[in-house]
């Protein structure tokens, strides 16, 4: 008991120390005089809670053997195989119908969430499957966004024509970076990619003639539906807008719904492609490389090409999402491509569960939707975000929905020798 008490006091003091700068000090503005004022109540309250919680904490029983394994790695209930397609279809139908009943802001947030779903899925291939820690992922996102903005501004290419070009540009950038740095591993790779992300941002900021520098690029064209614009008036002489063509009244929400549906389609495409890839030899090779590079080499797999393919694929996904981001915003500047974006996407992958598609999707939605819904707690966002990450690392290091290994159906006994 005394040991428990001592521990509880120490933990409470630590909690107090940590909360003082956040809750214990108020900035008092009195005319031009700014002073700091102590505010002990919230700090004391938190210390009391932490103290009590620590003191009366039930010691966790250490599980052993299989019980330990099943406790650490809870398997999500496996759906019967025949229900899966039905369930997936249902979710897709709901996702398509939903915007017609939702509010403007909800659709807007959902579109943003879908962008992060795309980014998360792409980074999941690099970090979750291939095990390459990439902290400069946002660079490829920026390449896609600026790629579309510039192509559209200078050559007037449409969104749909630019989309594959942006994917190619981002993939090329990924391979360009990948060649020299992929022989590095772990922390070293993380540092180089971090630097690369910053280089791209600084380039965008300083290449005034090309990118407009900090002012960015504005008036980026929105996607069209087979050439039909979503606007009150056509932007070009003799153009026809969506509502004119179908003889409907103009509703500005139509644009939002359309953008949402485009994002949904793009996210589903990425999801499908990745789902196929991870069951293909290349996807297996990505995972094998994460597990043991030397074993891969000893079996004839070329680690360079495999790493490059994972890196390039992740980059192209970011470019894909970036092009859409530019089209949706209509305006981009380097501020949208800071390190914090890379960190958020990485957090999505880690929270969702490395290598788990469903987990990444849920985490992307949670991390974009929750801050918008809980706007009144906006000041605490980073605090809560950090807390959630720490708690996850303690209780569920494998992520919200841990990746489950695909079970392969074996062919009937093969009698013939290979």
């Amino acid at each position, binding site marked *: 008991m005394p040991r428990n008490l001592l521990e509880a006091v120490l933990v409470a003091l630590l909690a107090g120390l940590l909360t003082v700068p956040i809750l214990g000090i108020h900035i008092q503005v009195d005319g031009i005089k700014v002073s700091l004022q102590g505010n002990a109540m919230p700090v004391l309250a938190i210390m009391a809670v932490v103290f009590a919680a620590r003191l009366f904490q039930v010691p966790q029983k250490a599980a052993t053997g299989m019980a330990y394994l099943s406790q650490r790695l809870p398997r999500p209930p496996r759906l019967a195989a025949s229900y899966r397609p039905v369930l997936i279809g249902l979710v897709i139908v709901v996702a398509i119908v939903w915007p017609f009943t939702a509010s403007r802001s909800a659709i807007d947030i959902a579109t943003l969430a879908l962008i992060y779903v795309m980014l998360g899925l792409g980074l999941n291939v690099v970090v979750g499957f291939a095990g390459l820690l990439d902290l400069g992922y946002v660079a490829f996102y920026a390449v896609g966004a600026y790629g579309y903005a510039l192509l559209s501004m200078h050559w007037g290419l449409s969104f749909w024509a630019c989309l594959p070009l942006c994917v190619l540009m981002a993939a090329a950038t990924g391979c360009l970076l990948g060649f020299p740095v992929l022989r590095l591993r772990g922390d070293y790779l993380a540092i180089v990619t971090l630097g690369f992300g910053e280089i791209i941002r600084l380039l965008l900021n300083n290449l005034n003639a090309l990118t407009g520098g900090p002012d960015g690029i504005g008036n980026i064209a929105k996607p069209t539906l087979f050439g039909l614009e979503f606007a009150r008036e056509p932007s070009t002489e003799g153009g026809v807008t969506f509502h004119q063509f179908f003889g409907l009244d103009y509703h500005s929400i139509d644009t939002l719904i359309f953008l949402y549906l485009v994002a949904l389609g793009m996210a589903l495409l990425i999801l499908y492609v990745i789902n196929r*890839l991870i069951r*293909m030899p290349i996807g*297996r090779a990505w995972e*094998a490389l994460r597990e043991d590079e030397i*074993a891969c*080499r*000893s079996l004839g797999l070329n680690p360079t090409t495999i790493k490059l393919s994972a890196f390039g694929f992740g980059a192209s996904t970011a470019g894909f999402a970036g092009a859409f981001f530019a089209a949706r915003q209509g305006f981009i500047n380097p501020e949208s491509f800071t390190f914090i974006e890379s960190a958020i996407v990485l957090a999505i992958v880690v929270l969702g569960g490395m290598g788990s598609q469903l987990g990444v999707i849920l985490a992307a939605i949670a991390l974009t939707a929750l801050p918008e819904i809980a706007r009144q707690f906006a000041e605490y966002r980073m605090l809560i975000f950090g807390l959630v990450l720490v708690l996850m690392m303690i209780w569920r290091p494998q992520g919200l929905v841990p990746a489950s290994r695909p079970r*392969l159906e074996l062919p009937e006994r093969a009698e013939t020798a290979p």
Partner: protein
Amino acid sequence: MSLESNPAATAETTSTPSALLEVRQLSMRFGGLLAVDGVSFDMRPGQIFAIIGPNGAGKTTVFNCIGGFYRPTSGTVLLDGQPIHGLPSHRIARQGLVRTFQNLRLFRTMTVVENLLISQHTQLETRLLSGLFKTPKYRRTETEALERAVFWLEKVGLLHLANREAGNLAYGQQRRLEIARCMITHPKLLLLDEPAAGLNPQETRDLDRLINALRSEHQVAVLLIEHDMSLVMGISDDILVMEYGRPIATGTPAEIQRNPRVIKAYLGEE
């Protein structure tokens, strides 16, 4: 499977132009340490050849040089008459020379059958589009790969564990899986680095039978490093003994057991 040796392999004892592996004056220097010093030997197709020696004699370094994990300081290695020294390890593996590791290198979080699919990577349909659209050719190669995996799992007695994570298998099972993972690539030459380490006597006897079966049924030559003398003496056609990086004797098991230098290296001076 009994311990009978391959009659074709024992008939000729000297090196022939049709040697599968020719190692000539292989040396490997790490800074001031000469880990391998002038090792030469030949292997015929289908031969079982053992390298033995005290700990630190440079046996695994020889493996790493042959397999391309180290670039030898000097010397040549020919596989089927083609020089392979200095090639990257994955290129050497594709020419039919694969190995297991002293401390097991399985893909631990992947399932047993996935381990066997990965080692067939170079033989599979890996083009992006055929996989995305599941072309008939893609389906066929995947099914064939699974069939080969089932064949080898049955061979090493792991079929009932096919969908388990490889890291959760018992130690002896992991050793057998690693051998199956190599054999599924159709190697000409299989390098086994201490395959019996950590096995109990029963498992060692099973391993003995397995290696003999690999040679007689799948025509693979086996180069092994091993400390278990009963296994080495029973199974090998020829043995190379190393001490301090230098070869001190080569010959059949009977010759090696009589060789005074070998006895000295193992038991010390009288």
